[in-house]
């Protein structure tokens, strides 16, 4: 999966890829004070396109709000909602809005799920539908945090660690291996990293084409940018 960390106030973004074998579950957000956990499990392609290497995508997300007793399992098939023991199932083919005391859900048919958790967080899960008969690819999901300022200072995870900002400095831009994509040195979290100017896509507005987000690409699974290594974010289950 591609990760994009946008800094709207600086009009800039950082990005990195996380590659591991399909089926791996990553912790994206963990806030022990608020009691929120977001984990995502990756899937691969149906079959490896001989002209490409195996790509992984998020195929399901598990979201927990411990204090509200809320659990959500979002897959490419459906959305399972559990609140204080009561369970219900929503389908991507629905066009539906549900307002609850602690959580609002809105499913835009075959496009996105918007989840608003009272006084804590708002996020969108985008469904990327792939042609059913496609020989290689299958449906996958994207996860976008819309409002993260209410998370506590202890929030962590592959995305969570960036919610309260990050200090980085880009300098010494030099010609990279691709003349269109200059390299630079980034000083971040005590490391000097070589980064490359590139772009990733934001699919919230245009689900088919996406919008290019120019960003500084951190190589090698975000090494040096993320705390620790990717193994530190692998968990055993969606909850």
């Amino acid at each position, binding site marked *: 999966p*591609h990760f994009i960390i946008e800094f709207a106030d600086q009009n800039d973004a950082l990005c990195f*890829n996380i590659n591991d074998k399909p089926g791996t579950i990553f912790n994206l957000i963990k806030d022990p004070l608020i009691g929120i956990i977001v984990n995502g499990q990756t899937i691969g392609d149906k*079959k490896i*396109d*001989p*002209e490409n290497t195996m*790509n992984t995508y998020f195929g399901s997300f598990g979201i927990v709000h411990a204090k509200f007793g809320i659990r959500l399992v979002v897959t490419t098939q459906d959305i399972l909602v559990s609140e204080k023991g009561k369970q219900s199932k929503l389908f991507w083919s629905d066009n539906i809005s549900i307002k609850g005391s602690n959580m609002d859900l809105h499913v835009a048919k075959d496009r996105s799920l918007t989840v608003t958790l009272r006084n804590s967080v708002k996020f969108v899960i985008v469904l990327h*539908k*792939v*042609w*059913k*008969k*496609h*020989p*290689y690819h299958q449906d996958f999901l994207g996860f976008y945090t819309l409002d993260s300022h209410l998370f506590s200072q202890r929030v962590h995870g592959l995305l969570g660690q960036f919610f309260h900002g990050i200090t980085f400095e880009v300098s010494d831009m030099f*010609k990279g*291996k*691709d*003349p*269109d*994509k200059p390299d630079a040195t980034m000083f971040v979290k005590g490391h000097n990293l070589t980064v*490359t100017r*590139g*772009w*990733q*896509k934001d699919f919230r507005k245009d689900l*088919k084409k*996406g919008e290019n987000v120019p960003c500084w*690409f951190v*190589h090698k699974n975000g090494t040096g940018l993320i705390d620790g290594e990717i193994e530190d974010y692998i968990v055993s289950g969606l909850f």
Partner: protein
Amino acid sequence: VSVSEIELQNVKINCMVTSRFAHTVMTSMALNKANVSQEVFFDVELPKTAFITNFSMEINGNTYVGVVKEKEKAKKQYEAAVSSGKTAGLVKASGRKMEKFSVSVNIAANSNITFTLTFEELLQRRLGKYELMIRVKPKQLVQNFEIVADVFEPQGITFLNAHGTFITNELLPLVEKTVTDKRAHVSFSPTLDQQRKCPDCDGTLIDGDFFINYDVNREDMFGNIQIVNGYFVHFFAPADFPKLPKNVVFVIDRSGSMSGTKMHQTHEGLKTILNELHEEDHFGFVTFSGDVKAWKPSLTTATKENLKNAEAFVETITASGLTNINDAVLFAVKMLKDAMNKKTVPENSASMIILLTDGNPNEGESNIQSIQNNVKNAIGGEMTLFCLGFGYDVSYTFLDVMAKQNNGLARRIYEGSDAVVQLQGFYDEIANVLLSDVNFQYPENSVNSLTGSKFKQLFNGSEIVVAGRLNDNMMNDLPFEVTAQSVEKDLVFVGNATAQDWKTIFPDQEYIFGDFTEHLWAYLTIQNLLDKIEKGSPEEKIKATEDALELSLKYNFVTPLTSMVVTKPETEENPEDTFIADKLTEDQRRHVPQAAGVTLQRTYTSSVTNWVDSD
């Protein structure tokens, strides 16, 4: 590879054709056995109709990949090299059908190199068959030589032939061919000894063209529609329609430059063509130099006697004087219009003008754009104009644009002993019109980005291809309507196409190359847009250029709007070398000497790698 101390270890040509869209990968591996570094050349000839999509060189584990860029951007980047007088380009014109991609690189002692070139093209149906042409000239014996082609046609294959100009009786059994209902596999893999010209010599027999010809079933009158992952392609070539009678005016250049062999060949060509006219056809001759003359003032029925008289007239055409294309074509238009207005020709018939010229207009109206406007306005969509450019002195683009503006096409006739055969071949392609005014319609709310969907005529043995995008990627059904006019009546085909399950059609096939329908759509759209750039209004040209460029970059196609930049590895002698591969236009081909060699460009960039665009 021309140096004996370089061993050509591997040459593999792998073609994958799926629904007429051919994806060819040419791989060549060489080893420098010498104790010093040597230059290795990779010369490949590919069809002019193909777009290069990839090129890479692998040297000692390092891969150098070509990057497709906007042509102007690439040129600007390397303008220092261009301004130093060195010609840009890896691609050179090469004969009638091919263009040559050449690259050379210095490799260290005892090192090997692998070149890989990939290109794609839509095979066109001509005279009832598709043709895949592979030119092989390894220039020396190859340890492992292999041509492998897999053809996947969901409509089913009616016949498939594989042959080569270099295939001797001894090599013939090595051409292996397996054809099942929807799939064919062709391979040719001679051993080192089988490649030898004689038992004790190093010369190779493998030098020439390898052809695969085939056709598909066409059981459905409305054609075949394939829906794949949000894209569709409609192949339309119904069989068993009677030919429309035709009304044809031959407009023949008799200017001074046509004298000698060209005029003799024109006589021969026209006499052959006259023999193929049918009694229900009408025809006329307009000849021109500085002035315009008609054989007869109106169209003539193609009776035996009239044809005999026409043959005698053809013999009398002699060459001298200037070139007045404008008045000659307008005269022909008037002849056809008069015949249509007076109803001396059948109502359901195909009217066409065939212009043969070898030079540029220099008498009467000589402004090319004015001539194009005059002709377009005069024709008004009521007939088709075909242009034959004889030799290299003609402005082919002028003829090409004028033909396309009037629903026709142009062809260059190469000066040579077979010019008569070329003339006749072109005539055979266009002479037999089965349907006219063929229009394809799909629900507006279901499709977008449709390629050309209105065609003045369908020729016998050809095929119309329309492709488009579906508004909903998930769509597996597409209603359609095709209207056309045949000799007897107006035709309407209405139907509903359904996506096929490729796993069911080709169950044993692990891999049919990925998004071929999307690539086919992109290829066809770019071709349409390139035509529009030539013949459209100024506003249309700007939009078409932008769109074609965007698609060329997206699909990594080397088209006339893009260039592929190839960076060579650094050596002590050459700190850094960069090449640019372009797609030549027909006019550029005209100016490039046939035997042009490779010229290097030197700039100061390092090797190229792509790594961020994982989407």
